[in-house]
């Protein structure tokens, strides 16, 4: 059977190997009455020691594969396994005539519920650890086999519903060549791990577990999210070539990690990373990011049962700022609404959510939520080079209002004796055409602009980027878009302000030469694109591209502009 599955490519590269299914065992438990509690207790104890032996082995593997830090989580798992309170709760039920499996399940539910109810992100995550440990113990009691990826001794591609921490820690990079999960998105645990291990990963496939059998030959393309089942010889050949090309390029790019981004005529531009969580920081560093051009703060608000506290936010901002160690760090205030929603906060049903109450508009409607974030940011400002950015600004009044709220919070902090940096910057995301047209007026009041191309294009073209029938209008190199961008850059420079870009386009090899010629100061992109971009800059002359700009701005179509770029670079 010939088949292709697609998901979201979250870690670049190509893997060719056989499938290894990571099964989620059936751990259904029934309540039975027992008449020999001593026997039941003995079963529980022996299951515990078996699980302990297994966890010890996993801990050793994790230390070997990922270092002592990552192994620490399994020391915590062992403490949970040997927790006397857990054991006492289970023993109490067994002594009342309840079978060990049911007793354990009940105890596990009680403890996980307790941790899940805590108003602290860290503690809620511990609930997952408890579940992980008790599942292992339950499997031992039930005599059910749990897939044990640490025993893998040939090259495989892992197929799973999702990856649990204990499963991922057992993955041996030597043999695990990639993975495919049915659940997850760009910022899920498995995606971040894939990028950290630098193995291709595709998530959100929905049907991989249902359609891929153990041992099926697979090709996984983590760049575009394709998974090919039982590939033909021809497909194998073409992907082998692609794979070695990818690896060769990667090797060549390594020398750019420690270098600044300099054009062939000696001009410096800043190439930064877009990050979505503190967990992306190692990746930004590994790729030599010169700063963070976009820290999306939405992740702090997602996958939770309530708004993050000021303290939680402060911790995250401080972590990012101090780990960037003085390098510029642009933090975008909350941008929800549109296609991003929160479970604990109902955003209004709208006919056109992208034209509705989203981002800064929503923040104005809920000033308490917004002020909490502003306070956390201001407090963190002393830990690095902070640049605060407001999203979806259309009018000057909006910018003034947001900045006014920020300054009010700063006053309050001063009054409370809390220190705030006096050198942080306040800028805006430039993504609404109205703002691009009057960029000269904004430029007098902002410290910087960062151009968000995805939205700027969709709003300029009046074409929903989720709607495939109008996707032909998504044209980053269209004369209208380039003229708007150029207008913004020139207006900002006239006032001595800098301009960055944090959309996909900033890392696009076809757009980079033109943007450089226009004088864009900062290019922010996904960390895995940084080195490629830096290599491209090294081959471009800024003066040369500057001289082409008047001619490019007179071209009539995207096609002509792309042709020109290809011919000259």
């Amino acid at each position, binding site marked *: 059977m010939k088949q292709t599955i697609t998901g979201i490519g979250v870690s670049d590269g190509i893997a060719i190997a056989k499938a290894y299914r990571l099964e989620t065992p059936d751990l259904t438990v029934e309540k039975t009455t027992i008449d020999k509690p001593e026997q039941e207790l003995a079963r529980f104890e022996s299951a515990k020691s078996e699980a302990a032996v297994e966890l010890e082995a996993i801990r050793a593997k994790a230390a070997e594969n990922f270092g002592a830090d990552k192994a620490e989580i399994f020391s915590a798992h062992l403490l949970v396994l040997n927790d*006397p309170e857990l054991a006492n709760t289970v023993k109490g039920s067994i002594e009342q005539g309840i079978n060990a499996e049911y007793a354990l399940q009940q105890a596990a539910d009680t*403890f996980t519920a307790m941790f899940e109810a805590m108003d*602290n992100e860290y503690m809620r995550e511990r609930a997952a650890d408890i579940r992980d440990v008790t599942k292992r113990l339950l499997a031992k009691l039930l005599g059910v086999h749990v897939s044990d990826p640490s025993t893998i001794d040939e090259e495989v591609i892992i197929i799973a519903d999702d990856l649990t921490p204990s499963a991922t820690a057992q993955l041996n990079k030597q043999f695990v060549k990639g993975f495919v999960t049915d659940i997850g998105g760009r910022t899920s645990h498995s995606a971040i791990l894939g990028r950290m291990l630098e193995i291709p990963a595709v998530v959100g496939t929905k049907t991989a577990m249902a359609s891929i059998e153990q041992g099926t030959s697979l090709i996984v393309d983590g760049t575009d999210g394709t998974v090919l089942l039982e590939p033909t010889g021809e497909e194998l050949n073409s992907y082998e070539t692609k794979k070695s090309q990818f690896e060769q390029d990667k090797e060549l790019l390594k020398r750019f990690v420690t270098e600044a981004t300099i054009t062939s005529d000696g001009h410096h531009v800043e190439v930064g990373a877009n990050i979505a969580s503190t967990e992306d920081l190692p990746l930004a560093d590994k790729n030599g990011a010169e700063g963070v051009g976009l820290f999306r703060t939405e992740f702090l608000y997602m996958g939770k049962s309530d708004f993050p506290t000021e303290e939680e936010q402060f911790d995250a901002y401080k972590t990012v700022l101090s780990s960037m160690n003085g390098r510029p760090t642009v933090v975008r205030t909350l941008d929800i609404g549109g296609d991003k929603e929160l479970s604990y906060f109902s955003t209004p049903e709208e006919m056109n959510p992208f034209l509705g109450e989203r981002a800064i508009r929503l923040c104005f409607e809920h000033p308490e939520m917004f002020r909490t974030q502003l306070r956390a940011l201001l407090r963190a400002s002393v830990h690095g080079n902070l640049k605060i950015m407001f999203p979806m600004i259309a009018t000057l009044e909006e910018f003034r209002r947001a900045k006014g709220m920020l300054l009010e919070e700063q006053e309050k902090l001063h009054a409370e004796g809390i220190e705030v940096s006096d050198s942080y910057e306040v800028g805006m995301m430039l993504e609404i055409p109205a703002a691009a047209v009057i960029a000269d007026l904004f430029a007098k009041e902002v410290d910087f602009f960062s151009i968000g191309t995805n939205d700027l294009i969709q709003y300029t073209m009046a074409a929903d980027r989720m709607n495939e029938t109008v996707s032909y209008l998504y044209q980053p190199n269209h004369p209208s878009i380039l003229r708007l961008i150029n207008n913004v850059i020139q207006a900002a420079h006239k006032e001595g302000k800098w301009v960055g870009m944090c959309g996909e386009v900033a890392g696009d090899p076809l757009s980079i030469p033109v943007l450089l010629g226009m004088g864009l100061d900062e290019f922010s992109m996904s960390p895995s694109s940084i080195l490629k971009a830096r290599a491209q800059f090294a081959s471009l002359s800024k003066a040369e591209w500057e001289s082409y700009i008047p001619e490019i701005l007179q071209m009539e179509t995207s096609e002509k502009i792309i042709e020109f770029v290809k011919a000259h670079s």
Partner: protein
Amino acid sequence: MEKKTYTITSSEGLHARPCSMLVSAVTPFQSEVTITYKERTANLKSIMGVMGMGIESGAQVEIVAEGADEAEAIAKVDSIMKSESIGE
């Protein structure tokens, strides 16, 4: 019975690493060791019991050991608290 009072100074409170270290340190002792915070008491050998108390930085806690090796247990707690900068 031996007891000692501490102010938690670790910035993460008694979560994660500091908590694991204390639990691992007292587990081998025969004595019963408990921790009391805001009038709630938990077994210091139970990681879930201790983490479940949600002890933040700055909290006042009392550690009590009772049993044959109570003095040694408290001494161990004291040395971990100080050497790992968990509390004072």
